[in-house]
């Protein structure tokens, strides 16, 4: 978080994203945005509203509904002097782009012996509970984390979103940037002054001594809520947000685990074969001799996200469930 000295104002996560884009587009005219309904409509989530008015339709470019195609166009444009930021409306659509991102964007630099570079950003959304059903509610970031050549960013606050997106745009490599579609209206302090946030630096969102809650994106707020509830039971929970999953700040995560000796890993992606597995095994190995209990993983239930509200709500970890699991881990029933 910004030091208290700094002058800040409250922005929503969506406003923070837009501000980061606007600042980078002013700074570097090679930066441009492309995607479906990004211009006049400002995206389906209205995150980019107004951007086209300042930068025009050449730099805020509406595309056909061709996720694979425009992602490929971005790869080529990035190789030859531009800095594309592609917008994938729903993260569920990344399946259409996997070949372009994995076989092209991620490998061009290495396959060319380091000669060509692909400085592009893919912005996509994640998150359920929007009543959007199975094809509009997935959090598929784990796929990209598995692929060398890509970097993966999951901001959890307006402050992090702005600072990390600016860093992503300046990065010389393909970066996949996931925003929780349920958090676009979430408000938080953002400095008036320009700033960036380096990749690979986890952020301790809350200090604690009894248990560590490692959480990403939307789950950071579930963790903070659970930590509040735990406080009333004299359990001091530390909440750590890796912020970037690749590169991953293993040291900060492991140090917190060593300090508290108990860890829950929270991520909105599917629990099985996902982000929680990687982080849990990093902790289990790195803090092996300090853990009082097995690392607990909590991710999305292994089910296509259902539409029906009571069912959908059951698929994602909640404050209450995290609170109860944490209490049990700390020996309280």
């Amino acid at each position, binding site marked *: 978080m910004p030091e208290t000295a700094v002058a800040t104002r409250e922005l929503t996560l969506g406003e923070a994203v837009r501000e980061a884009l606007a600042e980078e587009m002013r700074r570097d005219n090679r930066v441009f945005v492309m995607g479906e309904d990004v211009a006049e409509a400002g995206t389906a989530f209205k995150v980019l509203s107004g951007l086209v008015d300042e930068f025009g339709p050449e730099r805020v470019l*509406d595309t056909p509904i061709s996720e694979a195609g425009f992602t490929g166009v971005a790869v080529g444009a990035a190789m030859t002097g531009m800095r594309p930021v592609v917008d994938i409306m729903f993260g569920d659509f990344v399946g259409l782009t996997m070949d372009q991102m994995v076989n092209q964007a991620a490998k061009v630099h290495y396959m060319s012996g380091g000669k060509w570079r692909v400085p592009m950003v893919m912005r996509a959304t994640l998150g359920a509970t929007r009543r959007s059903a199975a094809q509009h509610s997935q959090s598929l970031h784990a796929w990209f984390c598995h692929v060398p050549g890509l970097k993966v960013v999951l901001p959890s606050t307006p402050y992090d979103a702005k600072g990390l997106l600016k860093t992503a745009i300046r990065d010389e490599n393909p970066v996949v940037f996931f925003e929780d579609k349920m958090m676009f209206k979430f408000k938080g302090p953002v400095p008036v002054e320009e700033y960036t946030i380096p990749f690979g630096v986890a952020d301790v969102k809350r200090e604690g001594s009894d248990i560590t809650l490692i959480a990403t994106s939307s789950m950071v707020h579930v963790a903070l809520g659970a930590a509040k509830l735990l406080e009333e039971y004299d359990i001091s929970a530390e909440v750590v947000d890796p912020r970037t999953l690749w590169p991953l700040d293993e040291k900060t995560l492991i140090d917190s685990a060593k300090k508290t000796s108990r860890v829950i890993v929270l991520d909105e992606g599917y629990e099985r074969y996902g982000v929680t597995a990687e982080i849990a095994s990093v902790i289990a190995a790195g803090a092996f001799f300090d853990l009082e209990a097995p690392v607990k993983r909590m991710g999305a239930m292994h089910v296509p996200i259902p539409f029906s509200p009571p069912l959908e709500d059951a698929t994602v970890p909640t404050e209450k469930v995290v609170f109860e699991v944490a209490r049990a881990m700390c020996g309280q029933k």
Partner: protein
Amino acid sequence: MSTAIHPSKAGSETEADRCLRMYRRMVMIRLFEENVNDLYTRALMPGLAHLYIGEEAIAVGICEALTNDDYITSTHRGHGHCVAKGAAPDRMFAELLGKEAGYCKGKGGSMHIADPATGNLGANAIVGGSAGIATGAAFAAKRLGNGRVCICFFGEGALGQGVLYEVMNMAALWKLPVIYVCENNMYNEYTHYSETTAGDILTRAAGFGLPAESVDGQDVRAVNAAASRLIEGARKGAGPAFLMANTYRFTGHHVGDMSRDYYRAKSEEQKWKAERDPIKLFSDWLTAQNMADRAGLDKIQSEVKAEMDQAVQFALAAPYPAVDKVDQDIYA
């Protein structure tokens, strides 16, 4: 082999019977959608929905030419296709409200209604996402020799999805009984299709070896005539075809899309509603032909309205699925 949607259909019905059945279907769709919008505005429906108002003649004109066993695949704007293929409004509303009594036990919602009993392979929330499924169903129909045909409904925005061309190519190579129906309402969400679609749509389809034609999507009789011809051809082994139906959505992209001035003019909407309403056009024709009089059409309207009111009440009263159903139906 394949049975008609309505017993009547098989029998000795008159042209008037056929037309009035189509009229009733169109009214059903219109009133279904108006109720959906009402449920949304009254905050009784979770999530969003994409209304088919203004496009009713396409689904009805095409499904009238299908048998119950024939297949359809649908889109995010799928309520109209679903009703036209014979689904029951009460179970559709129940699905839209996430209730156990819905067609998908509440697990699918507005964008995923499916119903094997009426050959509905399912709506799809991925633009172009059902093109492969539709082509595969036609593949199976040909292999199994069951004489079925599949209709692949999609909006013109799906012309941006490469997979559509991949499967049209295979359908043409293998002479599969599938008709690709492009509902060209001129907008991909909030962007006019001319900004996203180069060249000529019919020429695209022709380039992949499909006979391609366009039809006035507001004229249910024209749609039905074209569809009947293409469907019977496909049934007889002529292979796939491409039909573009020119139309317009009268309301927002979805129920939450209220202020649309930034992407299309009010006057454009008004013109279409005033001059090109498929239901009004058809009722004018029906009365002009003396196939029906005002009173008769009004009677249909009120019958359908009553049916919809009941269906909504059923859905509102229906229970949600028990939470422990959440992890059922993942694997067969």
